[in-house]
């Protein structure tokens, strides 16, 4: 196992290096003089020279690359020109929004998708199977942002006077104040600065509401989360349902299933215990691979639902040409992508010894 682990870790290094190079090249490919972009069009040559020297921009490109690598190793992702805050600060504030959204979406996708796929395989070629797969195909073909817009129209306008009405934007009902858990518990007095990690955690509103036992806050946070999470989760849900179905169908054709049938096991036991255990392996991979859809979905969904997560931050940074933010967010997401794929591979190796040995 440790050899598999090491081999897999080493194989991720060139990709991580490549990501660093690509983000570096992307940032350097942007037209315009960074000095004039930051200090203004009328900056003098002297102040520009000083600026370039201070930021290492007068160095040759390879040296600049080393400086860039060193900054990133030190957790310095630069500063947002538009907001005047460090990119790390911005990420710490807005990442929780996206993580909360993506995780809820993933939970919806797995909790609904896996049973649907199992049901479709269990009742292969029945009406349930055809309906589920048709639904899954439509789900995969829908543009995320369109689904978000239609859902918000349905739940905020059509169902307005019913108990099913849901808010179409924001994270909390207006006027509701999410007192962070460290304040409620008296860990931090008014006016003191809490540790960054505490702040980071308190920005997960659902978690914060649970910790503080504030049910009004919890209900508001959850109700605001439902529509965006369904929007982001639909494509992964459809993919997971399809994958579960096909992989369970394949597992049910194996010899050991025939043996189980021959010894007279109940059909339900055969499908759900013997078949499902083996069918789950590819499903785990697919769940990991869906990270890309979650990120892409988050960019579009946050735009539709007015959430200030990293997706929306990225979009705003692009439209306002705030390049340090574009670079930082792209880098973080790509790295998260690599790490998640790595974890999925490792988990897969744990689940299936054949992978490790091959």
């Amino acid at each position, binding site marked *: 196992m440790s050899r598999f682990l090491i081999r897999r870790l080493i194989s991720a290094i*060139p*990709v991580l290096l*490549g*990501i660093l*190079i*690509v983000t570096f090249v*992307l940032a350097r*490919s*942007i*037209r315009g003089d960074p000095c004039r972009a930051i200090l203004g069009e009328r900056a003098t040559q002297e102040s520009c020279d000083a600026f370039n020297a201070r930021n290492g921009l007068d160095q040759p490109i390879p040296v600049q690359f080393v400086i860039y690598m060193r900054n990133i190793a030190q957790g310095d992702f630069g500063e947002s020109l538009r907001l005047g805050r460090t990119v790390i600060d911005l990420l710490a504030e807005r990442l929780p929004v996206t993580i909360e959204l993506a995780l809820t979406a993933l939970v919806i996708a797995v909790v609904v998708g896996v049973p649907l796929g199992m049901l479709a395989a269990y009742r292969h070629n029945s009406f349930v199977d055809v309906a589920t797969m048709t639904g899954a*195909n*439509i789900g*995969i*073909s*829908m*543009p*995320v*942002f*369109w*689904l978000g*817009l*239609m859902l*918000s*129209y349905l739940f*905020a*306008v059509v169902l307005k006077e019913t108990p099913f009405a849901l808010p*179409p934007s924001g994270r909390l009902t207006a006027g509701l104040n999410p007192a962070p858990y460290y304040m409620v518990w008296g860990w931090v007095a008014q006016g003191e600065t809490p540790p960054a990690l505490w702040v980071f955690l308190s920005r997960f509103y659902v978690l914060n509401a649970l910790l503080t036992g504030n049910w009004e806050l919890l209900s508001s946070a959850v109700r605001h989360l439902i529509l965006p999470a369904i929007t982001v989760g639909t494509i992964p849900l459809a993919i997971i349902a399809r994958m579960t179905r*096909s*992989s369970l*169908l*394949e597992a049910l054709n194996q010899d050991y299933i025939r043996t189980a049938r021959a010894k007279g096991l109940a059909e339900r036991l055969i499908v759900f215990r013997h078949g499902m255990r083996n069918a789950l392996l590819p499903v785990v991979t697919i769940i990991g691979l869906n*990270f*890309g*859809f979650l*990120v*892409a979905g988050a*960019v*579009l969904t946050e*735009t*539709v639902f007015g959430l200030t997560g990293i997706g929306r931050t*990225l*979009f705003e940074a*692009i*439209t306002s*040409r705030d390049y340090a933010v*574009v670079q930082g967010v*792209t880098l973080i*997401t*790509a790295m998260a*992508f*690599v790490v998640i794929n790595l974890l999925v591979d490792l988990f897969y190796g744990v689940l299936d010894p054949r992978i490790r040995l091959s």
Partner: protein
Amino acid sequence: MSSTSRNVVALKPTEDLLGPRRAPWRDTVGRILRNRSAVVGLIMISFMLLVAVGADLIATHAPNEPMFGKPGEVAPLPRKPPCVPAFGCTEPMHLMGLDQNARDVFSRVVHGSRLSLFVGITVVAFALSVGVLIGLVAGFFGGWVEDVLMRSMDVLLAFPSLLLAIAIVTILGPGLQNALLAIGIVSVPVYARLTRASVLSAKEMEYVTAGRALGAGPMRLMFVNILPNVLTPLIVQATLGVGTAVIEAAALSFLGLGAQPPDPEWGQMLSEARALVFTAPHLVFFPGIAITFTVLGFNLLGDGLRDALDPRLRGTN
């Protein structure tokens, strides 16, 4: 003469057992046509193609012209929901209503099919040619060439594709052409990987050894001997890829990075109508249905082709 006919008679029983002779492609077409999802997909795509080709005949109005009430009136008409006389609407017919600039939504959706199909097919053509070339070279030559090429593909795959496309458009500047290029670039790795994987097994085949023994150079081996034999998974992936490209182009346009107003591109129409979703949902509804319908067609055809052409790939993806 009589001896010849006797020979033919002698051969007949075997021929009967084999059934009438058919060209190999007939088998393939038969298998595709027996696949329900391939047929449904094919019908949907043909329908969209007809709409795109006949857009000028089908559209009731010019896609970018605002409507005016009576002749000589200066102010364009206000936004209107769909109006179909057959359902009791007394005003002039607008199947999908008028948008915020008093343009006929139906005509815009119809004309949008041209842009979307053009986008899908161009992107796939670009990604397919570049990706196949990279995959062929990497798989055929192996060694450091393969390492360099495939590791670069891994790096491109490490970025969520929409994110990378956004970054590329940021550098190139917004616009439909740049969006096409960006989506094309991020789609390349899929085809490169697929081609390389197939080439690795195909190059060990005896027909390649035979070609080499006959003195064929690398170009001939790659393009004449190997390429035709690795096409099947590529055809499947390319079909699915058109759908993905249509959706991604729409997403870029929705974010304001792709097609620009007043182009009747579906994503762009959604972007313009976004703020009006609560008051004029028809402006959002129809372009989205058009995207879903087109993408669904390509996805169904791709799935069907996969099942029909390559049973080994069944259930993957």
